[in-house]
């Protein structure tokens, strides 16, 4: 792989100046972090590693599972005495990891392909992140029998609450118009999301 200026890419993100100022290693972020209570993960250490700006360290980190544990709850944000946002720093690291293709070197990073193909495609095809017809009770046993009932009888169940279900016009889970979906599609093109998806697909394929 070509040598890249990972540190530069990280700092160029508009969120960086808000997310990562200075750290006194007090650990309030880790103390409250749901992920650090569960995984071998420590947001305080991540902030320090990023601040070291060592390319080798950053390459290792962006190629590892470490950046994919955060659950994005942002509980870290209101507590940091230096005003950092470790959860936002994670978003930056993940974006750089995907854009540079490093994400395929970790098992958790490789999950981006499945997420892109589910949530991503949901958004452009339906206008919703999730849709009753796309949360399959088979792969979601944890959703329980009520969800299976709802998903399998979507027209009747959702139709009870809104006659407009899956139809044009306002209302519950209305069918998003082709014009609105066209807007979304062009926004995704113009703002680089399609390019990002292409990277996820091609880098994932190369790795296999």
């Amino acid at each position: 792989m070509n040598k890249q200026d990972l540190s530069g890419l990280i700092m160029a993100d508009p969120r960086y100046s808000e997310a990562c100022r200075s750290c006194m290693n007090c650990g309030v972020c880790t103390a409250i972090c749901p992920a650090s209570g569960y995984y071998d993960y420590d947001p305080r250490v991540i902030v320090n590693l990023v601040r070291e700006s060592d390319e080798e360290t950053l390459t290792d980190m962006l190629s590892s599972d470490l950046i994919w544990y955060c659950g994005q709850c942002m509980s870290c944000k209101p507590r940091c005495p230096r005003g950092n946002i470790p959860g936002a720093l994670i978003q930056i690291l993940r974006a750089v990891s995907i854009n540079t293709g490093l994400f395929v070197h970790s098992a958790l990073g490789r999950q981006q392909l499945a997420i892109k193909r589910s949530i991503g495609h949901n958004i452009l095809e339906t206008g919703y992140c999730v849709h009753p017809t796309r949360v399959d009770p088979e792969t979601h046993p944890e959703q329980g029998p009520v969800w299976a009932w709802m998903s399998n009888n979507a027209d009747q169940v959702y139709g009870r609450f809104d006659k407009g279900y899956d139809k044009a016009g306002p209302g519950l889970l209305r069918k998003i118009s082709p014009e609105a979906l066209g807007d979304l599609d062009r926004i995704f093109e113009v703002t680089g999301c399609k390019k990002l998806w292409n990277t996820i697909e091609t880098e994932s394929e190369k790795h296999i």
Partner: protein
Amino acid sequence: MLDGREYRITVIGAGPAGAAAAISAAAMSMEVDWYDKENRPGGKLNDYHQLFPDRATADQILADFDGRTDAIEIKKHFGTAVNRIETDNRQLILLSDNKIVGSADAVIVATGFDFFDARLKEEFGYGIYDHVITSPDLEKILKTNPEDLRKEGADPVSIAFVHCVGSRDQQAGINYCSRLCCITGIRQAIGIKELFPSCKVVNFYIDIRAFGSGYEELYREAQEKYKIQFIRGRVSEASENQQHRILLKAEDTLMARPLKLTVDWLVLLVGMVPSCTQVQIDNHQCTDQETGFYQPVNVFTGSRIAGLPGIFMAGACGGPMSIPEAIASGRSAAMEAWQYLKDR
């Protein structure tokens, strides 16, 4: 012999710095008017139990001041809050609630500090949970009735101290270090251990700043003799369970692992902030924009308040300060005032 017989000086504040300034000015034969908003001298010392590093009682220091201020000619105006000074030619006019109460050739401002309002650090639940208290609260309990720390007659099982509450914290709008909370926490932790030897006492710190003479020794004694546990990490959240015990979440940063602990009392070591009774001087901006404390004309060489003639500062109105430092700064301000009046 320093002779200040012709000079009229006013000292505002009767805490340790103000007392030292008044005693020193009087010793130089200056005519001293001494004000405090309270009806008695001593300031916050009245509420303190013990002092560090040698753990002398606050009452001993108070008695010493009382003896010396009584033995010397000082006009005391306690119960009068001077809250404004106006300059009139070479005279300084003192006002209390817009009423003129006196005048002077020079003024030493020694209005002290306030403790940080711990309610602002909402995550600790101060003012909501009865067993979350601040270091000054604990000091009062230790001084008046330590039995209050028992619960239904039983010794507390565990007590934790949190360092840097309202210090070094952008969220609280305070970026400076209050310096004295570390050693306060160490000294109070020892006090707890002496009362309740079997109680588990844990101090959550970020850096131990034991800067003063004898402080590091006290820190070591706390560890070695009293077996007080020091965990490097700031408490992130406190909450209360049904038994009214306090649950803490912190990171042990030396292990890089989150940690939880339940305690009977949580003591917040609150920092020092500018006093809400600061004196307004003309319409002059004489406090530091960032910290709100008075600013000297030169941090190395002068205690005169920047930009103003004849007004000097002493003690913690200029920033967090220990009692010996406040006393020294009171003496030094008196000396500088004398020098100023002689030279003008």
